[in-house]
């Protein structure tokens, strides 16, 4: 039993206040999500009057049905899934390569290369010069622009390098004595021991790609290549209240309807994260701790 908590087995005033406050904080944390669900499932008149707070009023699924009918949302969803999968894979492979090579203390030139990477954390050309490079490479308005220019995240690189460094050296040495090459050491010894960190870094990259809208705003012109977050932004902040580009003839009715629709789209675009999150949660705390030592 934890000594710090001696005396807390009994219910004290202090512990009641503690648990009560934390429960309120948890509620504040969750309430916005609840509000989104309530709005997305509420009926027309309830949304119009603005009296939806905690639970749906006049429960109905029409907003979700409307999303199902919007091909643009599905195209955006497909693009986002594609970019997230390819992007995460690319990022993960490059980060592993960099972290593995630069975690070997016998590599000549290691500190030079590490410095080259770390320096970009503190100094960058900024968005315009980067934009010009991406454009110059012909990546403008291609899906490649959504993951190639930001393939490696320095923070994730540091986390992974630290993890690789702390792995016991003996296994690796044994493998080398048995004649294993660097690749074999990496794939047969190091990576199988690194599943928790791989899960963590994958989560960070995947969430980053899933949530990013700015790269799409910057580099994508063709609406068929819009990502989900960019669609969502346009939907939420007024630039595409109706799908077809036609003027909104139905007037205020559609306007209010769209508030449910907006929140339903928010829900649809957030649910994948909420579904994946609990499975990876047990890993990432350690990852963050490793990373925060330096960085």
């Amino acid at each position, binding site marked *: 039993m934890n000594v710090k908590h001696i005396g807390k087995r009994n219910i004290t005033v202090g512990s009641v206040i503690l648990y009560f406050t934390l429960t309120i904080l*948890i509620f504040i944390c969750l309430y916005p999500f609840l509000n989104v669900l309530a*709005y997305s499932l509420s009926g027309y008149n309830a949304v119009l009057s603005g009296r939806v707070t905690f639970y749906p009023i006049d429960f109905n699924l029409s907003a979700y049905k409307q999303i199902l009918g919007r091909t643009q949302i599905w195209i955006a969803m497909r693009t986002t899934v594609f970019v997230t999968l390819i992007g995460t894979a690319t990022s993960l492979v490059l980060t592993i390569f960099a972290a593995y090579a630069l975690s070997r203390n016998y590599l000549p030139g290691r500190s030079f290369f590490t410095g080259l990477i770390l320096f970009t954390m503190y100094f960058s050309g900024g968005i315009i010069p980067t934009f*010009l490079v991406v454009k110059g490479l012909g990546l403008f308005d291609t899906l490649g622009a959504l993951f190639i220019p930001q393939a490696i995240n320095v923070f994730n690189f540091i986390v992974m390098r630290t993890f690789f460094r702390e792995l016991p050296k003996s296994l690796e040495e044994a493998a080398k004595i048995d004649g294993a090459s660097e690749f074999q050491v990496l794939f047969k010894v190091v990576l199988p021991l690194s599943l928790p960190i791989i899960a963590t870094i994958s989560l960070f990259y995947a969430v980053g790609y899933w949530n990013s809208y700015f790269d799409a705003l910057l580099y994508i012109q063709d609406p068929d290549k819009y990502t989900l977050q960019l669609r969502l932004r346009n939907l939420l902040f007024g630039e595409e209240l109706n799908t077809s580009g036609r003027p909104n003839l139905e007037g205020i009715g559609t306007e209010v309807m769209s508030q449910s629709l907006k929140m339903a789209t928010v829900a649809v675009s957030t649910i994948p994260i909420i579904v994946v999150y609990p499975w990876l949660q047990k890993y990432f705390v350690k990852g963050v701790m490793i990373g925060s030592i330096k960085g």
Partner: protein
Amino acid sequence: MVKAEKSRKKFAQTLRNIWNCRMLYLLLLPVIAYYIIFKYLPMYGVTIAFKNYNIFKGVFGSPWCGFDVFEKIFASENFWRSIKNTLVLNFATLIAYFPLTIILSLMLNEVSHVAFKKLAQSILYLPHFVSWVVVAGIATNLFSQQGGTINWILKSFGVEPIPFLSDNGWWIFTYVVCNVWKEVGWGTIIYLAALSGVDETLYEAAYLDGATKFQRLIYITLPSIKSVVVVMLILQLSRMMTIGLDAPLLLGNNKVMSVSQVISTYVYRLGIENAKFSEATAIGLFQSVVNIIILLAADKFTKMIGEEGII
């Protein structure tokens, strides 16, 4: 003679080491290529801050113009306002976020019920993973003056509707609330790590000596996380000139532009929306240089007060 022999041997040894590591260099090759193309090439691109950029002539062909671009931006009122706004929003967020994170960590650390603690942590970390588009969308729904849920609740208590999103002062408040909501739970991880490292026997000894819970907090818990707190504070202070584009761009609107326009959004609007490449790049460069100076100073300061450096 012997010396030359030695250094030649050493050189041969180095070459052999490099050759032995050829596989590792092969792994590094795509990484270095990536950094050169997407990070260092744009760094060369900052030269357009000193040029009269012409789309047709490109980065290399455009004529040099010295510090003309800088003179132009330093004379612009919008530029100074975006710097002021960046600092105001960052400080306002820091003042709320920093103490709340520590208090929340201390609270979570006191929870002895393991299942409750785990659940609380899972829920409190969750907003970190939600995109800014979604946060801004939810915030608009909650805070808007007409039909916003919070104003609806306030109205039922007889409070006049509050212009959370359209009044300058209230907008800053809303901005801080959204930031704190999103990141406060995530920020506790590092403090919880430091707290879990505190030597249990200290608490035991203090308990046996009759220290109250509060005394244990003041004399054991706080001193043991002091260095983490100091380093985090300095780290966050050193980032005062930087704001990610997402939050101010998405939460902002035309009515509050005079407080929501920060350096990053200004660069974006100037550069991408108005195609003033040289000016936008110059502002970005100015920001980078200021950041580096602050960072070096902060690092020196942390070392001076006896902590490990932050670089």
